[in-house]
Every structure is written in structure tokens, then in C-alpha cells.
């Protein structure tokens, strides 16, 4: 029985002297939105191209429902993908673009109209794609990914170029795809985009996975034992709390997070030092904070941050 979803194992690929993929391994499961995160150049797009059989690897395997992509019959009914939304013939309309894709999978032409409806592109469907905004191209790309009604959806930076409204729509849309039981892989280099969207996080750096974890667990771990304190004199509060042995970090103009001591003790300390404060609460870490916490521990990734200021 073949395993559903995407399974990537030990991918290695070299472009000239650059090692683009260095043992990339992870799995994408049905019913979950998996965030594929890492800085630019970490190997996200290369991995996705390998999964789609566009790039060959020196070592390793990437399987869709247990088979390599190039062996799939009617591949778009297995996996829908969006790599580059700008990759359109400028003289062809959205509908005709989806039409040839539909024909390539033996799907009827009305399937194209359905997905156009689904992504909210009906009004522009018969206009030439050359005149589309980046957001419209993204929607067209999503429509193409949905065309074959595939159990797996793979999107490379789908939030790029979307307006705030579009981002909200996209989040809801990704959630609904997962809720329908599909496996969804979404790459991004901005954590905030995946906030409240991703269930699982695959963080990559330098061509390999540095963390593969559930988002809930990750945020819990990052929030654990931390207390947020809102105060008009963060400097005074910091002095008072550090003296008592706490670790303090500033997170905003008037907010600090404290770890090492509990909330009751913080209230006592601040009162004793007559530092004014308006709120003491359990800290809820953002995905970005959690991600930074996570990558701070990854040696591989840290080596990538420049340690020397260029002169």
C-alpha cells in the first residue's frame, strides 16, 4: 500500500560548487497544512521542483503517493502545484490557460470554469494573462493547482504579491483545503504569513531540514514559562526583575517578556520597586518568535548569519 502525501528522503543536489540540497528529508501528511519555511536560498524551491520531477537529484527520492512524479498518470489529479505565478503566456487568457491544462489531464473544459469560480477570477477569465496583476496571477496559479482536484497541493510562496484581503482569503482557503483532507505544502520565507494557518512546520536551512515539528507544540514551547508585562517604564522593570534572577527580553515599546520567575512574584517585585505596570499575562509567542527560538538552536543555520561586519 502506497503512503499518501509527499515523502522526501535524503535529497542531495549540487549546482556547480553550491550544495543546494544536502540530505533534505520530510513528509507531508493529509489533512494538515505544512509550512515549508527557511530563508531565501535554503533549498525550498529546489525541493519542490525535485518533487515535481522538474529537477533531477544526485541522491535521494521524492515520492507522491509512493511513486516518483514522472511515473504518475494524469499527475495533476495527484498533486496540484504553483511554482511561479508569472509563468504564463501573456497572450493567452486565464480560461484558455486552464483549458489546455485540463485537456492535458483528460478533464472536461467546464472544470476550468469551476476552478476559476473557486478562486474568484470569473470577471477576468477571458482577458489576456499579460495584463494581470501579481495577485490575479497567484489566483490563476491556485486555480491551476486545484484543477485536477488533487489530494495533495503544493504552493511555492503563494502569498507573494497578495493584498491584505488576499492574504486573509488565502489563509482561509488553505485551511479549508486541509479540512477537506488534502495534504497541503506551503513554502514561505515570512513566518507571519503562516500564522494561524500551518499545522506543521518544516524549517530548512542550507539544503537540509533543521526542524520538523507541529506548530502548536512549537508555540507552546516558545511561550512556556514566559510572562508578558506591559509597563510605561520597561527599563525600571527590567532592572528590578533581572536583579531577582529573571531573564528579560523587550518585545515592544512598552512590553517585556520575563522568564525564570512566575507571575505572582513579578507582581510583588514590581510593586516593591514602585514600577508602574498595566498588565501581567501569560505570554503567547508568535510563530515568528517561535521560529527564531527554534533556529537559534540550530548550529547549521546560525553559521549562515554573518558574524563579521563587512568593512
Amino acid at each position: 500500500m502506497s503512503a499518501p502525501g509527499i515523502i522526501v528522503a535524503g535529497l542531495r543536489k549540487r549546482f556547480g560548487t553550491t550544495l543546494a540540497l544536502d540530505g533534505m528529508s520530510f513528509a507531508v501528511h493529509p489533512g494538515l497544512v505544512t509550512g515549508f519555511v527557511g530563508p531565501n536560498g535554503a533549498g525550498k524551491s529546489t525541493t519542490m521542483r525535485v518533487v515535481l520531477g522538474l529537477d533531477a537529484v544526485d541522491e535521494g527520492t521524492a515520492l507522491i503517493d509512493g511513486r516518483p512524479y514522472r511515473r504518475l498518470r494524469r499527475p495533476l489529479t495527484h498533486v496540484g502545484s504553483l511554482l511561479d505565478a508569472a509563468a504564463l503566456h501573456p497572450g493567452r487568457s486565464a480560461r484558455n490557460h486552464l483549458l489546455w491544462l485540463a485537456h492535458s489531464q483528460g478533464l472536461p473544459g467546464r472544470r476550468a470554469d469551476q476552478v476559476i469560480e473557486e478562486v474568484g477570477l470569473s470577471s477576468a477569465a477571458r482577458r489576456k494573462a499579460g495584463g494581470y496583476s501579481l495577485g490575479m496571477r497567484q489566483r490563476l496559479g491556485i486555480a491551476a493547482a486545484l484543477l485536477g482536484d488533487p489530494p495533495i497541493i503544493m504552493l511555492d510562496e503563494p502569498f507573494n504579491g497578495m493584498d491584505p484581503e488576499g492574504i486573509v482569503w488565502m489563509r482561509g482557503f488553505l485551511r479549508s483545503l486541509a479540512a477537506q483532507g488534502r495534504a497541503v505544502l506551503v513554502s514561505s520565507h515570512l513566518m507571519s504569513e503562516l500564522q494561524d494557518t500551518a499545522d506543521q512546520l518544516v524549517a530548512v536551512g542550507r539544503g537540509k531540514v533543521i526542524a520538523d515539528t507541529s506548530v502548536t507544540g512549537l508555540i507552546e514551547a516558545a511561550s512556556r514559562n514566559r510572562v508578558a508585562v506591559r509597563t510605561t517604564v520597561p527599563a525600571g522593570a527590567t532592572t528590578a526583575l533581572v536583579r531577582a534572577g529573571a531573564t528579560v527580553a523587550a518585545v515592544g515599546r512598552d512590553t517585556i517578556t520575563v522568564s525564570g520567575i512566575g507571575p505572582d512574584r513579578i507582581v510583588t517585585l514590581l510593586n516593591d520597586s514602585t514600577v508602574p505596570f498595566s498588565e501581567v499575562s501569560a505570554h503567547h509567542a508568535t510563530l515568528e518568535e517561535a521560529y527564531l527560538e527554534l533556529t537559534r538552536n540550530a548550529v547549521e543555520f546560525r553559521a549562515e548569519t554573518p558574524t563579521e561586519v563587512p568593512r
Partner: protein
Amino acid sequence: MRLALHAEWTKIRTVASPLWLLLGTVAATVALSAGATSVVSCTSSGCGGDTTKLTLIGVDLGQALVAILAVLVISSEYNSGMIRTSLTAVPRRTTLFAAKAITVTGVVAVAGTVAVLGSVLAGRLILPDLGDQALSLDDGPTLRAASGTVLYLILIGLLSLGIATAVRDSATSIGGVLGLLYIVPIISQTISDPDWQHLLEKIAPMSAGLAIQTTTNLGSLPISPWAGLGVTAGWAAAALLAGGLLLRMRDS
């Protein structure tokens, strides 16, 4: 394969440029043929040469438009990056490439047939009545020249497709194709040594392939009509092979 072919057909008919290029092929071929036949001075005894070949001279120009069409079939996808979408839809490279080749063959066959028939018709109307020498497709050599010219245009399309798949950039591909076609007929004019001249004309895709149009004085040809078309077919096959292999081997 059937699905890939259907998709390629949808692709080619949903943008405007292929249709215009095919119409252009017909128009340019017929116009040049008609222009050339109308300037030669003919007497009742003949035109001092091979009138069939003259009537079909328009393909010298028409083939350039066929070349653009075939180059754009693949290079426009590389240009926009859509080749990746195509390959995710049809992951088997050979299937995708074969579908493109068949589509090119089909559309060029139709346009080429119309262009050749138009040229022959123009020739019949323009050239004086030559009695038993009049152009007629009932005539074996003339029929061979006309049908061979359609095949020639198809081969030029396939040659261009192969080169463009290997090269990927449209300007470089079209430059390469036009260079391959036009340069040898020109330099062979300037080469005085007849052995070299014949050798060049025997191996060059245009000089050899257009031997198919000759209906008179076959003995003076550097290569026989069908063998000449075979040389062009060899070029097309080599280009398709190179393009197909590179498409399979390369990351997209």
C-alpha cells in the same frame, strides 16, 4: 499521448501568433512565388528554366515564418517559465516533445499545402500558356515537387523545433535556423571549386531539400530530389534528437 496532444493543440489555438504566422506563411509564399513568376520573361517555348521550381520559389521566404512558428512553440514556454507548468502536467519529456512535434507537423502541413497550391495556381495564372509544358499536378515531377515542398516545410518546422528546444532562447534559435538555411546557398555561389560547391549543396538542409522542386535537368543536380529531402530529414531528425535528449537530461 492523446491527452498531451490535445493540450498542445489547445495551446496553439488559444494564442493569436501561431495563426498569424501560418497565414503569413501562406501569404509570403504565394506572394513571392507570384512576384517571381511575373518578372521572368517567358516566350511560348518556355521560360528558359524550370518553371515548377520557379513557381515554388516562395517557400524560400515562407520557411522563415514556419521557422518562427516552430521556434516559438517551445521557446515562448521557456521565455515565460511556463515550460515547468507543461512538464508538471505532462511529466514525461518525450511525450511532451512528441506532442509538440506532431502539432507542428499538423499545422505546417495544412498551411504548407495551402501555400503550395496557392503558388501553383498563381503560376498557372501568371505564366503564359505553355501548352503541354503548363503546370499541372497531374504531371508526375510537378506533383513530386509540390508535395515534396510541403514535406520540406514540415521538416523545416521540426528542425526549428529541435534547435529551439536545445537552445531555449528564441532569438538565438531563429538566428541559428536561418543561418543554417540561408548561408550555404549564398556561400556556395562564391565558392569556385565545383567539388566543394556540390559537397556543400549536398549536405546543407535548404540546398539539398529544395532539390525536390526540380523537374528539369535532374542530371545537373548535386543530389537527387528524394535523397535531398532525405538530407533535410536527417537534419530535422538530428535536431529533434538533440533537443529531445537535452530536454530529458536537463533540469527545467
